[in-house]
């Protein structure tokens, strides 16, 4: 286990940006979380498939309109965002906007920051599936006319290249692939880069999952995707930890967090939204979609220990809570393993019940929702948790709870035996 050493920098969060089905911006997300609002619908973009696809999709996104909403960003940068992103896949356009929002909050543009000390970690793999799928019919007709830019855009690294060019990021940067744990794993890599002083500031960006019919059919065939029982009632379909859960409901969303060393933030007079204190990633040596109690409990325990804390110190757990039958049952067992007789004290909710399973960006968006809840003193509802699979745990009900939370864990688990947990402290 990694031990936090005093020579490591403390890592604070100074900027957040998000776009989800609930709308553009942290304000929309905060409002949705407080009210317990969700926007699940039948997705019309999958006529090829023989079953209804329920999702919380980002509809009607327009890059030009999205950019124009940032009043305190210089026109020159807004134009650069628009010109660079206008012919890029939708997922890149959305990442550009979430970064812009986080940049604005962390006041990066108003500070004297060495671009070689800014890092970039982009969470997500297979991020251009829909883009490729949409080009395939014209490609089959005439391969020669394939756009030369395809060679750039089909690669996940296009996110890194585009964001680094637009925001002049010249430190360390790369993509992180960890299935549904990608977001947390990316956060943890950024955290370590700052701790070890590889960079002073690091952007962590979760890419919107733009699935094509192939991936949706695949998730359906493997039994991971829900939406069958509640096909006619989409708002009821995403129900983590409820006895009528039947699989995850896909959500589209992108999030950006700006992490920086506390020394730099203090020096520049930037407020901390929260602190990352403990982290853990562990494989459980299972290549399939088999969640594992030992792997899941181990990362929670390691994250708590790395922070120098004990389970009693944890007030709230933002669960992975995908709504998968086996996944939910496994996570409940892991929670019992970690918290033992304290399980009636730790508050639990599942953000996927409101914004869907945002796959590659889930960990980042759930870290964001955790920070929002800690800042605002509430816990968002579990909208469809009508009959919990375990009644001994302390679930938030169908209404938001007013609770002061100082310490939280956020879990993310992925296919291929990938387990991760991060421990967050409330900011100033």
């Amino acid at each position, binding site marked *: 286990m990694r031990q936090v050493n005093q020579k490591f920098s403390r890592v604070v969060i100074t900027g957040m940006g998000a776009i989800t089905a609930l709308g553009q911006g942290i304000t929309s997300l905060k409002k949705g979380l407080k009210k317990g609002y969700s926007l699940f619908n039948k997705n019309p973009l999958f006529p090829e498939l023989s079953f209804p696809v329920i999702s919380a999709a980002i509809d009607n996104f327009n890059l030009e309109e999205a950019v124009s909403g940032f009043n305190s960003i210089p026109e020159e940068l807004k134009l650069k965002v628009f010109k660079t992103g206008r*012919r890029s896949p939708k997922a890149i356009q959305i990442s550009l906007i979430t970064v812009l929002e986080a940049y604005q909050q962390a006041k990066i543009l108003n500070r004297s920051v060495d671009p070689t000390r800014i890092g970039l970690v982009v969470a997500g793999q297979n991020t251009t599936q829909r883009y490729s799928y949409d080009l395939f019919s014209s490609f089959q007709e005439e391969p020669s*006319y*394939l*756009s*030369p*830019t395809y060679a*750039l855009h089909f690669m996940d690294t296009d996110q890194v290249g585009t964001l680094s060019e637009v925001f002049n990021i010249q430190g360390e940067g790369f993509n992180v692939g960890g299935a549904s744990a990608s977001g947390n794993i990316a956060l943890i890599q950024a955290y370590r880069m700052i701790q070890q002083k590889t960079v002073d500031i690091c952007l962590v960006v979760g890419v919107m999952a733009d699935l094509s019919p192939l991936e949706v059919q695949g998730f359906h065939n493997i039994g991971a995707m829900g939406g069958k029982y509640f096909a006619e009632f989409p708002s009821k379909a995403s129900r983590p930890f409820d006895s009528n859960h039947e699989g995850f409901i896909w959500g589209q969303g992108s999030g950006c967090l700006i992490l920086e060393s506390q020394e730099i933030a203090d020096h520049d007079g930037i407020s901390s939204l929260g602190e990352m204190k403990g982290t853990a990633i562990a494989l459980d040596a299972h290549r399939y979609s088999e969640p594992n109690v030992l792997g899941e409990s181990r990362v929670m325990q390691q994250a708590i220990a790395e922070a120098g804390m004990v389970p009693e110190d944890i007030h709230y757990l933002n669960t992975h809570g995908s709504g998968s039958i086996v996944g939910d049952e496994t996570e409940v067992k892991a929670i019992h393993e970690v918290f033992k007789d304290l399980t009636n004290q730790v508050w639990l909710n599942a953000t996927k019940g409101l914004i869907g399973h945002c796959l590659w960006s889930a960990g980042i968006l759930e870290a964001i929702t955790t920070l929002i809840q800690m800042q605002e003193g509430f816990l968002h509802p579990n909208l469809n948790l009508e009959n919990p699979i375990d009644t001994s745990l302390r679930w938030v009900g169908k209404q938001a709870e007013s609770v002061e939370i100082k310490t939280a864990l956020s879990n993310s688990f992925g296919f291929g035996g990938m387990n991760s947990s991060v421990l967050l402290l409330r900011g100033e």
Partner: protein
Amino acid sequence: MTKAQIFQLICDQINIVIPELMQHPIAPTHSLKVLGANSIDRAEIIMLTMAALKVKIPLIEFAKVDNIQGIVDVFYHQIILADSISGLVKEDKCEAS
């Protein structure tokens, strides 16, 4: 198809790839590079024009040209060549029948 029509078609593609270039009048003597199109933009404009004209020309043919007129000429010659081959084919078919 005339050279003026091909020029207009190229302008249409420029408008798709880099619309701000169309804020000022574009002349055949202008160079895409000097106007501000990078190598990827230029390849994109040429590929879109190829698709619109339904012709196939190796991109290397365009490496030798200095301005938009040069691009027009490469497309024009290809179309003339394609038309004359098509005419010969038609003549062959007539003779054969």
